């Protein structure tokens, strides 16, 4: 479920990057790469788990499913936080710089 949540987040951010931010002004390309990287790593983890558990891998208990989904959502939010910090630090549209200049004047 964590893998599925991360893949969904990666697909959505890639679509947003392709349609609205192909010049990566708002760093949505970077966000999508963060999610794709995590998705690939969780995919590897899932493959190794499948090798161990075989078909049992696809029959998780509802409690495990819910916990994994909750973890996935929290991981996506954590990724968004990383992206937000990156955007605020890089300030690609100069909004923060302008705001600071306005305060100074």
């Amino acid at each position: 479920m964590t893998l599925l949540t991360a893949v969904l987040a990666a697909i959505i951010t890639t679509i947003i990057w392709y349609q609205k931010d192909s010049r990566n002004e708002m760093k949505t390309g970077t966000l999508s790469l963060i999610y794709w990287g995590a998705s690939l790593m969780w995919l590897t983890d899932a493959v190794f788990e499948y090798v161990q558990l075989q078909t049992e891998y696809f029959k998780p208990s509802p409690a495990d499913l819910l916990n994994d989904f909750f973890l996935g959502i929290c991981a996506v939010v954590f990724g968004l936080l990383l992206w937000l910090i990156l955007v605020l630090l890089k300030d690609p549209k100069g909004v923060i710089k302008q705001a600071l200049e306005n305060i100074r004047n």
Partner: protein
Amino acid sequence: MACFLVPAGEAVATTIITKIVKSKEEKEMSASDSINAAIDTQIKIPFSHKLKWLNNMLWGGSALLAFEHIWHGEVVPWFPFLTAAENPIARSEMLQEMSTVGVAMALLVSAVWVGITTASNVIEKRPQQAVKVKAHRGRNQ
């Protein structure tokens, strides 16, 4: 247990390589002054920029996996930071997981990056020929 440390280690190495490649590219760009070189730098994506894609995937993926390990109580804020490092049996399991799952993660991300880079090289070649012909025609007129 600590599988994310392998891609994180690769991320450190690729970040250093990116810095070296970027400084080399900047030196080359300031040294070259031919029209074709100028057109190439406008059309072609620098290799350092492509390396940044790999860095973003490795750093981002490692960060989210580290978050997952904190969630499961495998990474803690006190020494030795990894609960598996506290006893020898768990430590050997951790090292085995790093050498199998961790290495596979790093390899898969790198393989996907090679695929993306190859695809972008193919895409770059298409407009490059058209612009070069236009520039050549412009010089001849």
